[in-house]
């Protein structure tokens, strides 16, 4: 009997430990929040304005990271998101100056869809791995953005556009918070509750088994890459709205934060496993760390080092051991 009890106890412990690793992102988020709250309170960390600022700075990463979660779950990767965001900010700003806000929104979305279709076509039809396709696209998108804008910032004069896309707030709550919540909710439902989401996970978890089961795996990959570019374009439009201008540097280097957010959240780089809620928390955690390090008064160089160290620590803790 004692044997059975210890067995049961060790099983419960095992389950907790397994969950502990799986849930490290949530635990880590709370721990970092508490530590910053305790040590940085005199510098205004808990000030609502500061916390809302974290949301403002995180939303674009979160929007791209939600789509990246689908891409990674399908066993692919999209390195072009940051550059696509920059390009979309330029096309949207240019289009608004000619056609007004609605024309601008259409142009921005069209930019994302067009690049996504091209990425998807190269990856699934020509057979270039998405790592290479999107690495090349990163340069192409940035180049086009520089060329179209003549490397200058293009102002956006439409107040309405700026309010909806990142600049506005309802009371003190920034519109960006709603963008993040909507993307998170929709992404979560798509991945967990739709047959499309199941097929994405199946494609990344075992491509051959998925294909033998009648899933059009090339079609799934094509679609997640289009979704990713489109989300990146929306993130670029949010940057443009918030800063009331489009410029090619917007979103530069974001691909690393986006992938880090998804992986921190528990999405596998090798496909088949993903969680959108984890990704959102991962993005918020990166925002939190950035904010805390700035409040600490670290220099930019020191921030980079500290941020990298914290991310490595969190991912290392989440790895399964045998």
């Amino acid at each position, binding site marked *: 009997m004692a044997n059975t009890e210890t067995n049961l106890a060790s099983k419960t412990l095992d389950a907790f430990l397994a969950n502990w690793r799986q849930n490290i992102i949530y635990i880590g988020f709370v721990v970092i929040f508490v530590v910053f709250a305790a040590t940085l309170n005199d510098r205004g960390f808990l000030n609502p304005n500061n916390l809302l600022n974290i949301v403002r700075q995180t939303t674009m990463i979160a929007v791209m990271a939600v789509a990246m979660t689908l891409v990674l779950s399908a066993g692919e990767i999209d390195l072009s998101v940051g550059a696509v965001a920059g390009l979309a900010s330029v096309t949207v700003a240019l289009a608004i100056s000619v056609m007004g806000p609605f024309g601008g929104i259409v142009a921005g979305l069209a930019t994302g869809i067009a690049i996504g279709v091209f990425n998807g076509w190269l990856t699934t039809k020509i057979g270039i791995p998405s790592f290479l396709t999107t690495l090349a696209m990163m340069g192409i998108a940035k180049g086009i953005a520089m060329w179209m804008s003549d490397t200058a910032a293009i102002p956006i004069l439409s107040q309405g556009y700026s309010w909806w896309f990142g600049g506005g707030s309802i009371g003190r709550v920034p519109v960006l918070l709603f963008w993040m919540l909507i993307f998170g909710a929709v992404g979560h439902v798509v991945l967990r509750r*739709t*047959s499309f989401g199941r097929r994405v*996970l*199946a494609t990344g*978890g075992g491509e051959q088994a998925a294909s*033998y*089961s*009648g899933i*059009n795996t090339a079609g799934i990959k094509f679609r997640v890459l289009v979704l990713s570019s489109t989300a990146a374009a929306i993130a670029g439009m949010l940057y443009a709205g918030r800063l009331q201008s489009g410029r090619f540097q917007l979103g530069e280097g974001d691909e690393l934060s986006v992938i880090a957010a998804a992986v921190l959240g528990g999405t596998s780089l090798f496909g*088949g496993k993903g969680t959108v809620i984890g990704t959102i928390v991962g993005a918020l955690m990166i925002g939190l760390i950035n904010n805390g390090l700035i409040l600490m008064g670290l220099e930019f160089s020191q921030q980079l080092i500290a941020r990298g160290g914290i991310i490595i620590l969190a991912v290392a803790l989440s790895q399964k051991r045998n």
Partner: protein
Amino acid sequence: MSNVAVRMTGISKHFGGVKALDNVDFEVLEGEIHALLGGNGAGKSTLLKVLNGVHIPTAGTIEVAGVPLTNHTPAASRAAGISMNYQEMSLIPTLSVAQNVFLTREFLSGGLINDKEAERKADELFRMLEVDIDPSTIVGDLGAGQKQLTEIVKAISRDARILVLDEPSTALAVSDVDRLFAFLRKLKSQGVAIIYVSHRMDEIARIADRATILRDGKHVTTADIADLPLETMIEHIVGKRSLGLAGVERKDVSRGDVALELRKVCGRNKPRDISLTIHKGEVVGLAGLLGSGRTSLAKLIAGIEPITSGEIRINDLPVNIRCPRDAIEAGVALVPEARATQGIIPAHSVVDNATLAVLDDLSNTGFVDGKKLRKTTDAQIERLSIKTASRDHAVSTLSGGNQQKVVIGKWLASDPDVFVLDEPTAGIDIGSKSEIIQMVRDLAASGKAILMISSELSELLTACDRIIVMADGRAYDDIPHADLKDPAEVNSNAAHRLQVAEQRLQIAIQEALAEGQEVSNG
């Protein structure tokens, strides 16, 4: 009397409260090929992992050539001369044979790697062991059999005196198996002790000197192979009087209408001009050696490879199958050869795997209906008696037999008319095998048309109503089950009848092969 190469005494291994091994004695002599037998979960792999230093035994001692092994680490076991060859090959495909053999022990001249010297040494080694492989070949270009031999030569070159081979013949063609066996006999004559694990009793009978059988973590018996006829072996493994597969019940099924018809179907390379019909309630077997085009034919029917000419008809209507989705919609289900990569998604749950082929039926306007998913899965778990801790456990936690049942369940959910099974019992223990074969019979009884591929003839003979013999991409014989029985033998026991039938089928395959060679030469 030969010396004892390895002696394991009173080995026990507990995982939590589970006794994986209970006071097991195991002894292998120098110059002996010793078969280690048992069903899945009998404790074979745990025992080998203890020997290998991966597991530390809870109790018991290990002696290698009379010297007790005090350290239980993989390094200590390797230093003692124990080498394990896993089912998955451990060679690096982009390097040459010589580079692989001497990996991490490269010959240096002036601080730089000297590949010429490695090739010369490897050539010496291969010559000595009478293995005909050019050491400068890239491993990726070798056949499965040559890879297997290279791997063993690599182990021997590291002074392995005790060689553990786990299912070494699984990926091999018959001629490669012959070469492997000749090589193992050569090693044996040099005093190497070989522990041979296999589910294929025919091979054991051919190659092993003695066998040790484990069941439920306990030692059952150790005996000379000559004293262990097939029936006795299976009896010890299964633990009750059993004729193995002969115990499968064959309900009489009235043949229904034609469900699947192939008219002169060709694939890109194989198969060639295959015409066949399968009725509802009928199980048709495909016999033949590796490379005879059996798997290619299965892939054509399932839409994985394109047909280049000919016609596939299902329920008397021509169908145009160009992708797996087309085949599924036409009512075809394929239980594929490579279970781990083609059949299941190992890290995903039972419910996710079991519903993969019918997601659309279980969804409303794109949203999956969790209740329906669970209901469908539970129905399959019950119908096929799948043993799993829960439907939410990863399929990788199930035994091989139960994983295969999940694959079959996945297709049952789509209610197909035609089942194509490609080596459905590969790597599954004998107990679960007869369960799978029984399942095939039951599927036929429920009106499905079944095409079954298997390299184990006894399995085909037990499951099938007709057997088509393939060689070189063509179909040669179409033998009704009754024709394989010997009318003079009706009074003998079932196991003997099976044996007679197996010999006849074996001959048919060899004849088809000879005929096939004439066709391709003429």
